[in-house]
């Protein structure tokens, strides 16, 4: 645990505090206050992201600190979009999810800015990482929806809001194209940088595993529909486990050395 007594650190902690406060308000049925504080947290999150961008001299997508900083900022617009257009609820849990996503940035990963090595100086750097980060946040929300179905299978949904199994499906439908795009942009970039669109690198293989789990989920749901909601939920949870391994274990563990080790 490493507390950052810097402007960057304070911005992150303020965002976490706002998200947690928003969650408490929501749990105590003060929804309007909760949403207002959630929005405030999002604004502080943007300020934190922009501050990092200015100080590092490049868009902050390079290392684990920057990745989690960015994901912590993405949760708010996703919450609003899902509620308004997909009728997927769980905004209170999203607030908690946002705080959880910022903890690694706030307390774990080194915030020292790094210069971009030659391999990262490519126009594909931004779209490849951005779509992946957004897809990860979406799939994390999908996993929360799926878990809610497993933990509270008979819970009734709010008026106009879909249940956990349907909510997870909607979220995976939203995130899967981004996951696909991320995989393909990464392959294209690999071809431009290293001459190989597929190098059997551990990061590439685990990214493929993540994609395949959701692909299998769609085929399973095609066969059985909503007949086995718990099995459907298990697929979605399997997907987030694969994503966590891709994002964390592959980057941090010495078991998987490869070309993506700078991430």
């Amino acid at each position, binding site marked *: 645990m490493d507390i950052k007594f810097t402007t960057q650190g304070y911005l992150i902690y303020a965002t976490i505090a706002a998200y947690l406060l928003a969650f408490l308000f929501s749990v105590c049925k003060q929804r309007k206050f909760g949403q207002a504080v959630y929005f405030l947290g999002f604004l502080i999150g943007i300020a934190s992201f922009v501050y990092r961008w200015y100080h590092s001299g490049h868009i902050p997508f390079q290392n684990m600190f920057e990745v989690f900083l960015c994901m912590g900022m993405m949760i708010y617009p996703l919450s609003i979009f899902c509620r308004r257009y*997909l009728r997927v609820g769980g905004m209170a849990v999203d607030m908690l999810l946002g705080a959880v996503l910022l903890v690694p940035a706030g307390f774990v990963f080194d915030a020292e800015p790094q*210069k971009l090595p*030659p391999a990262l100086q490519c126009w594909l750097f931004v779209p490849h990482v951005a779509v992946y980060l957004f897809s990860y946040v979406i799939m994390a929300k999908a996993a929360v929806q799926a878990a809610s179905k497993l933990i509270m299978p008979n819970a009734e949904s709010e008026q106009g809001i879909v249940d956990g199994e349907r909510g997870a499906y909607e979220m995976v439908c939203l995130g899967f194209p981004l996951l696909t*795009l991320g995989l393909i942009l990464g392959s294209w970039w690999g071809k431009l940088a290293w*001459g190989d669109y597929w190098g*059997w690198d551990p990061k590439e293989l685990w990214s493929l*595993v993540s994609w395949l789990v959701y692909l299998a989920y769609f085929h399973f749901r095609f066969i059985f529909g909503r007949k086995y909601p718990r099995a459907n939920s298990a697929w979605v949870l399997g997907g987030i486990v694969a994503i966590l391994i891709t994002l964390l274990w592959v980057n941090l563990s010495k078991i998987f050395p490869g070309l993506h080790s700078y991430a």
Partner: protein
Amino acid sequence: MAKIKRVVIWASLAIIILLAIFSIYGAFIGSGNASIFFNSLPLAVFWFIFLAFLLLGFLFYPRLIKKPQLLMMHIGCILIFAGGLWGSETGHELQNKYLGKDKVFKGSMVIYEGQSENRVLDKKDYETVVKTLDFEIRLDDFHMDYYDQDEESGPTVHITSHAGGHWDLKAVPGEELDVPGVGKIKALRTFKRFRLIITEDGVNDAKDDTGGSENPAVEIEITRPDGTSVKKFVYLYFPDFTKDVEGLTLTCEFPVQDGMVKDYFSDLVIVKDGEEVLKKTIEVNDPLHYGGYHFYQSSYDDKAGAYTVLSVTSDTGLYFVYAGYLLVCLGVIWQFWGKMILRNSANNDVKTEQA
């Protein structure tokens, strides 16, 4: 028929799961071993079964053909798979043997500045010639860009007197220190690619030659107690030149992080039948494409920057793979987001009507 349809879809699901399991195994054994594993004979059988079931899907599920987005996704996968097979090392060997082609799958080229090369070397040993191209590549210039030097991590001049005294002078222009018995030593300039030049007046001077080889150096001025002064260059790679200056040994140090490489470039010219047909400056992420091959900036001479190392890859099958990627992307977006957009539009229409 219904039974066969169920077998096909269940087998497809099983194949996806198996591929995921193989991928997890491949991630644990490292990229080199994973490449061997996925190109092995048992996996070749798996790939053909994979392809067979993709095709069977079209036969038993007319929806895959009738719905353009599903058609695009599945055809895309077939194209990626076919392009990958066609462009693989085995694919090249079979094409060379049965179709009379003469293309190498991969290799490397080492080209010295000012020289031409047409030999592609084996990537494993950089010695065995695997292919002689029917054109040459000339390296006109190799150069690097560095990130700006940061004051706190800049170069340092180490000063040692024969009596055993030791001083460190930060090589920031204007920085000065007093060495007892010798005088004041001031840093004047630093160079990353030092080159001696003779000015129009016939005076020796130095410049930082951006197109030259790496040759870090620091210019210092020693002002004696009597007011006279002498200038010297302290070289990182040639410490013997300043072993005895005014009774001092001078060396310099450029920290590893100092002048971190930002990018490196090779100015290449393709020469075919004695004529220059193409010129391009390549860098990481911007290769040269010619004659059925891509040439990538792979590495370089990190001591003197005298040669560049290019990675050579055949472009066979690549455009099938790219076409497959495009179809999969478009199909996936259409299938999952198209439905969402249509549904939301329909809901908005209903709300408008109700209002």
